[in-house]
């Protein structure tokens, strides 16, 4: 029997674990002499250190925020770029676009293929005030999730403090941090709602979308027999539909948790979103284009997706 090892960083109650579990269950049900063994909660690899073993065949599968590998493939930084994705349905269209095809070509060079596509969204929290427009972050010590966001926030006048996400809670509590930006589910799982005054969730418009696909080592996939590959593909189709539905629910669920904790909920308007994007164009987009060969072409491909 063939056994595939799948690693990810989240708890077993997280949507991303469930996506992996659906594929594993479907493969098991297909009875094709194939099992997928899941190592959740970073019990095998540290979150950012999963891409290297995946591409070298030491790990078979992972659910992985692709921008974590941006240091190895700078093109992947486009998968966590402010304002590039407008909402979850737009994200789904991006997944089927030629832009994603280009990224998949790059992954193939690393012997990696995508099994399940998926984006998750996030927002902002402020310790003392709401953060909706660029002027709101001026002078605040801010912790951002992702390099491109750090560049945009710095351009908006925020002071960037880098620290592990596990330190956000303490840093907010003692006043080291005044603002933070990360995914809806991280805000909830780190109980940030206990420390902040205001939450700006991903709603009709949102700045922060992160591509977090289920990846597989390409050689490992090709070495499977036809029935096994078909089982994985069938599981993946089911998982991807589930992932999109759940991604939408995550944002609303996080709003409920923050509301219940008495946190003020703010909404970003379309004008405010546009203001952020103008700043991003002059900072993170510009930086990306300057540092990545063919960067402009890739960015245009992404922006052209309606």
């Amino acid at each position, binding site marked *: 029997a063939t056994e595939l090892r799948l690693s990810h960083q989240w708890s077993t109650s997280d949507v991303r674990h469930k996506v992996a579990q659906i594929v594993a269950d479907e493969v098991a049900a297909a009875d094709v002499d194939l099992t997928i*063994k899941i*190592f959740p909660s970073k*019990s*095998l*690899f*540290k979150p950012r*250190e999963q891409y*290297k*073993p995946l591409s*070298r*065949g*030491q790990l078979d599968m992972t659910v992985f925020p692709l921008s974590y590998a941006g240091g190895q493939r700078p093109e992947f930084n486009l998968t966590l770029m402010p304002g590039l994705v407008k909402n979850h349905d737009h994200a789904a269209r991006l997944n089927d676009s030629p832009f994603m095809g280009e990224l998949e070509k790059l992954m193939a060079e690393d012997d990696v293929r995508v099994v399940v596509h998926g984006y998750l969204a996030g927002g902002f929290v402020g310790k003392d005030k709401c953060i909706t427009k660029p002027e709101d972050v001026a002078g605040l010590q801010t912790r951002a999730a992702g390099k491109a966001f750090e560049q945009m926030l710095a351009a908006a006048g925020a002071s960037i403090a880098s*620290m*592990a996400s*596990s*330190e956000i*809670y*303490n*840093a907010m*509590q*003692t*006043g*080291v941090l005044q603002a933070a930006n990360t995914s809806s589910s991280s805000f909830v799982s*780190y*109980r940030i709602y*206990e420390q902040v005054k205001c939450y700006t969730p991903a709603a009709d418009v949102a700045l922060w979308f992160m591509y977090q696909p289920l990846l597989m080592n390409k050689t490992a996939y090709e070495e499977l027999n036809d029935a096994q590959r078909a089982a994985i593909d069938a599981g993946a189709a089911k998982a991807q539909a589930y992932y999109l539905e759940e991604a939408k629910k995550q944002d609303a669920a996080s709003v409920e948790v923050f509301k219940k904790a008495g946190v003020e909920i703010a909404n970003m308007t379309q004008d405010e979103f546009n203001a952020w994007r103008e700043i991003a164009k002059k900072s993170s987009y510009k930086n990306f284009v300057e540092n990545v060969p063919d960067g402009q072409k890739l960015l245009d491909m992404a922006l052209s997706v309606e």
Partner: protein
Amino acid sequence: MDPLLLGATVAVVTILVLFSGVSVANGLLIVAAGFLLIFDGFRSLELMPEIFFGKLDNFALLSIPMFIIMGASIASTRAGADLYEALDRWLTRVPGGLVISNLGACALFAAMSGSSPATCAAIGKMGIPEMRKRGYPDGVAAGSIAAGGTLGILIPPSVTMIVYGIATETSIGRLFLAGVVPGMVLVGLFMAWSIYSTWRYGSVETLMRSGTYTLAQKLAILPRVLPFLAIILGVLVAMYGGYATPSETAAVGALLCLGVAIVIYRLWNLKALWVVLRDSTRESVMILFIIAAAGVFSYMLSSLFITQSIAEWIGTLDVNRWVLMICINLFLLVAGFFLPPVAVILMSAPILLPIVISAGFDPYWFAVVLTINMEIGLISPPVGLNLYVINGIAPDIPLKTILVGSMPYVLCMVLAIVILCLFPGLATGLPDLVLGPAV
């Protein structure tokens, strides 16, 4: 091979390898490499340096050398002696004032040092000769300092608490607070035993005898204690005043301690400074190497599904939670007899913590119980780090006397664990009060 059987095999092999006298870190790497090679194939070895590097690639680890520098720089001065002397001058009328002063000084010093040997050495260098001079039994003189020194890892800051926090992803700030009250309980128990034992095996005169100090003398020593208060205050302000995160605070403490040592205690001689840095580097590298090697070891355990299977298996056992806790304590105690605290915590905490939590125990309370177990290991044979420190400070006290003198303090620690089981609030109360209920 069944993962549980494999786990037992790994345990036996690890014990055999470590008992061969190979260094703990190398031993862990050897066992990890061996099992990975046999069960995961040659290619898995490629991953070892990456995991090794990845374990060290963690900002929180910075606090380990920083807190060690704090202890080492202050221990290199006569600050420890000043501290217990000040206490002694003020406690002159209290029966057993000298041993109480020494234990109090240990506790205060522990609040600046993250490591136990540093605490032991700092207070013991002057404290032990003074106690013997004034007629305290050798066993009490040596035992009280050996035991008092172990407070270094219970009273914050604590290197082992940091390691526990990193291994289990619990809040280091909260862990630090959890150790405060239990540390005081232990000091109280140590003091009670010291006085009883001096009365029983020494004499009442010893207990009552003390220097007589004028008020002027009492006041004169106070300025020498001020640097301590300044450092403790500086660290507290940095940590809880919105300036620094817990891991960053350690650097403030290290800089303050080095500064105090250089300016107030005139440690501006380069050679003396190098001794402080050399000792800190040696201890830090030793601990960080074990942390990285234990990371590779636990990758092997997880990769072979041993960690997960053990947790699952214990979950299916239908035992009383207190029976479970007693078994865990016995395991930690035995492991602590032989292995340094850092190694025990790194290898056992990730496996034990989920079990402990699912049995309904608090992870911060458990950290305190685990730390007290490790403290016992430091003053019990066959490998008791503090015993050797005392042996180095007072070479004319036979090791056997130190050992026998320390045994009652081991019982004090066991008693402290029992007290903590009866009143878990002693550990969890302060963090809940300061930081609110646990995240």
